[in-house]
């Protein structure tokens, strides 16, 4: 791919050439474009890969459905529009630093005024005998991943050599490709750079339980043909491992071949030596990104590379810019589903440093803080198992904030909600919030005071949180905090179209007898409505007037699930859940469900709510499916929407020898009574036939348990993410009393709860609360 013939013209502008079109090379070009560099320079970039720059940080997502286009850093038109010539699949093979020209693999030569080396790094493959056998790979480019994917199709097992950060990411990828995966690490623990011994051991345990075999302190001596698999890896301790695919991830090395050839100064262990402005030993040649060696250090992360790109662009164009001053290498990641975080001096190498450690072998968490001798400053930290503590610790570390008098509170578990946070107010204005794009707290405050009033707007203007995305939670907090400080009221209005709460709207609809969204909007709102107020009002109208929700004037208020009586799945098909009150079903109906599933090739699953879910129906099939189901008496189970779901039930006294009442009949009666009710959030019920509680009624919004004296009613329980035990509301009720009580409770809930508030949260938020 190239636009070079269109763009390379004879101009007398000096030529600025960039070698390497990776993430940093691309960022450099963005900086040039922003600074209007094409007015002074003719700009050309050569990249060895067949594609223009893409997001290498999220490379693994190429295996989970993203394409090159999803990962691309820009469109080719970005280069055209900014007058930047590019050529891909173009390797630069030599630099003549005296004559100031470069040579491409095909022999073409170009002279330059300024040259920028952004050649990144290459994966290190240990020189083990057999390392170059077929079916061995590295993990760096899209081409690498294509090759791995192809090989994985015929492989059963895969092994990653190297248990560092990238190695574990690669192991996850192999596992997701369906291979039985192993990791072989030379060091005595996983992630030796970031983790200490305890942290490494814990991570190892967690990863092993996920089915990935981990070999630490294991040196591979040679790779030969295997008996049962493609390769046999022989280890120094005499053991061996057979595997079909080998992936080397034993570290990266700066790509400095060109610099060496041009006799630029390179480090002893590689890397192109640069000064604070990213100039190499030749004033007109710069190096940025992973190939550059600054004060003896290589930076294997994207954020420092971006800083270098900015520094170099400013310097070349003669702008007064900042110098490169190094970068923080703290990292937080999710590896194979396990949270891992490492900050600063994780290995406690600072003399006389002290530490706090918290470890829980039951929950698999480990947290360590390394602090200064007097306990006032955070020097480093290690986190395994739960990264929710990371952001706060990082801010203490980066900004040198004095620790609280009980520093251990920063890593101790908390009984509810989030860990102890650092008040955003405590952060200095210079605190870096997004390190990828170097956005400080002050930058955010300034952006907001110059008119960006929403999180999205702040993101767009500052680019904060658009790099690796690790700062998104913190960014939101800072934005909220700044808005609050400016006196922007954090309102309880349901959205920009109605300055009312859900409860207000409910009352307005009822008292003014409002029957449609348009009426309500005309009378009490403004604009056209949005995805928040439309379904909320649609729901209120249905609760109050019980109109058919798909009537012409209501249909545009309904989410797709409500509109098509089925649940949209991630591929855009639907799942259909017919109502089966109380879970009681006849053999004939079961047969019809089976026949329909077979006919339309639907995946079937028994749900936790005692019914049958039919997955994979296309929109066009839904009417046919429903026609067949309705013909035998089924109706929608409303497994969607904010409505009554199921009434779970045990079989009760009819069959069970312990049963004291007919829970089955009661469950069916209740389900038929409340089905179709629209409420602030979904409602689940259950009825048990005795105190053994087989239907788990005490974890439901409405739970009923049979007693010798009638029914006990439990209310506002919840399972799910935040379980809540239901409260006993009344005891020994008759059938009639039971129904009356449930009626009243639901009426009160529908009238007074907030939008999307489950009964459990509603109960706790009621004035006076609930005391038992």
């Amino acid at each position, binding site marked *: 791919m190239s636009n070079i013939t269109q763009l390379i013209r004879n101009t007398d502008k000096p030529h600025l050439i960039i070698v390497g079109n990776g993430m940093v090379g691309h960022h450099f070009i963005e900086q040039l474009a922003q600074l209007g560099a094409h007015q002074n320079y003719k700009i050309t970039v050569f990249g060895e890969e067949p594609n223009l720059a893409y997001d290498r940080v999220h490379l693994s997502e190429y295996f989970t*459905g993203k394409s090159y286009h*999803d990962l691309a850093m820009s469109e080719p038109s970005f280069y055209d529009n900014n007058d930047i010539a590019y050529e891909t699949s173009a390797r630069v093979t030599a630099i003549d630093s005296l004559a100031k020209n470069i040579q491409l693999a095909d022999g073409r030569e170009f002279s330059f005024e300024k040259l920028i080396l952004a050649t990144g790094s290459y994966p290190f493959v240990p020189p083990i005998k057999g390392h170059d056998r077929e079916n061995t790979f590295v993990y760096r480019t899209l081409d690498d991943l294509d090759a791995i994917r192809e090989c994985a199709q015929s492989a059963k097992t895969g092994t990653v050599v190297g248990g560092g950060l990238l190695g574990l990411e690669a192991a996850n990828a192999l596992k997701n490709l369906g291979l039985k995966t192993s990791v072989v690490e030379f060091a005595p623990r996983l992630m030796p750079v970031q983790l200490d011994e305890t942290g490494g051991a814990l991570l190892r345990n967690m990863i092993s339980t996920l089915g990935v075999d981990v070999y630490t302190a294991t040196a591979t001596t040679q790779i030969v043909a295997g008996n049962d698999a493609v390769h046999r890896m022989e280890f120094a301790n005499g053991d061996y491992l057979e595997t079909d695919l080998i992936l080397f991830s034993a570290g990266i090395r700066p790509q400095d071949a060109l610099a060496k050839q041009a006799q630029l100064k390179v480090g002893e262990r590689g890397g192109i030596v640069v000064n604070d402005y990213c100039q190499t030993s030749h004033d007109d040649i710069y190096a940025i990104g992973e190939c550059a060696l600054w004060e003896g250090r290589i930076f294997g992360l994207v954020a420092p590379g971006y800083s270098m790109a900015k520094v170099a662009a400013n310097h070349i164009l003669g702008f007064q810019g900042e110098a490169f001053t190094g970068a923080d290498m703290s990292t937080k990641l999710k590896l194979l589903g396990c949270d891992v975080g490492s900050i600063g001096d994780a290995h406690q190498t600072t003399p006389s440093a002290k530490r706090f450690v918290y470890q829980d072998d039951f929950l698999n968490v480990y947290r360590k803080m390394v602090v200064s001798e007097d306990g006032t400053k955070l020097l480093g930290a290690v986190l395994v198992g739960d990264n929710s503590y990371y952001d706060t610790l990082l801010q203490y570390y980066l900004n040198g904030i004095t620790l609280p008098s009980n520093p251990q509170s920063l890593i101790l578990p908390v009984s509810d909600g989030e860990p102890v946070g650092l008040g955003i107010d405590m952060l200095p204005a210079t605190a870096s919030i997004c390190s990828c794009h170097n956005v400080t707290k002050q930058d955010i405050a300034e952006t907001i005071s110059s008119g960006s009033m929403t999180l*999205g707007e702040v993101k767009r203007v500052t680019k904060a949180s*658009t790099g690796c995305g690790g700062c998104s939670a913190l960014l939101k907090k800072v934005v909220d905090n700044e808005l609050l400080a400016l006196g922007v009221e954090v309102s309880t209005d349901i959205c*920009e*179209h109605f300055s009312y709460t859900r409860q207000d709207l409910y009352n307005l609809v009822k008292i003014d007898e409002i029957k449609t969204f348009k009426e309500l909007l005309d009378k009490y709102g403004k*604009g*056209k*409505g*949005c*995805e*928040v107020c*439309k*379904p909320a009002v649609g729901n209120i109208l249905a609760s109050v007037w019980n109109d058919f929700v798909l009537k*012409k004037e209501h*249909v*545009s*208020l309904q*989410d*797709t699930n409500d*509109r*098509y009586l089925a649940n*949209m799945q*991630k*591929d*855009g098909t639907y799942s259909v859940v017919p109502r089966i009150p109380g879970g009681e079903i006849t053999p004939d109906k079961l047969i019809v469900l089976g026949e329909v599933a077979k006919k339309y090739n639907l995946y079937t699953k028994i749900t936790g709510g005692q019914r049958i879910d039919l997955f994979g129906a296309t*929109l066009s099939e839904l009417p046919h499916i429903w026609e067949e189901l309705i013909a035998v008496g089924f109706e929608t189970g409303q497994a969607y929407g904010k409505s009554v779901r199921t009434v779970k039930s045990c079989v009760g006294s009819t069959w069970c020898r312990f049963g004291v009442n007919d829970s089955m009949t009661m469950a069916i009666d209740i389900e038929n009574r409340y089905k179709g009710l629209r409420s602030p959030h979904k409602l689940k019920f259950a009825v048990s036939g005795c105190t053994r509680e087989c239907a788990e009624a005490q974890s439901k919004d409405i739970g009923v348990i049979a007693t010798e004296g009638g029914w006990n009613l439990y209310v506002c329980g919840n399972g799910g993410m935040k379980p809540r035990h239901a409260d006993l509301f009344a005891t020994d009720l008759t059938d009639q009393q039971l129904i009356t009580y449930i009626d009243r409770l639901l009426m009160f809930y529908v009238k007074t709860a907030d939008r999307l508030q489950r009964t459990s949260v509603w109960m706790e938020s009621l004035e006076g609360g609930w005391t038992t």
Partner: protein
Amino acid sequence: MSWIKVCSYEDLVANAGIAVKVMDKQVAIFLDPEFNQLFALSNWDPIGKANVMSRGLMAEIEGVLTVASPLYKQKYCLSTGVCIDEDIVLPIWNVKLENDVVWLAPK
């Protein structure tokens, strides 16, 4: 520009979307009944990776009319296709209404 006839006005749903197939591509068409204004954009949700945009709710955000993906709720401006939550743009189509017939043309 070559216009293609795709459906009639009756096929549209006020304040909501429908999907049509033209030149082997799925296009979502939305109707704002206030001034009978039509919008047409690709039915493909680039984030959710499915042809579902026509099934999203129409939402006005700070005066801009958008459609919210029914899968992950990102909102796209109906007239430009620009996503307001992510750095992504949906292809849009030229659309017109003539004598109760809806016409599309690629942009």
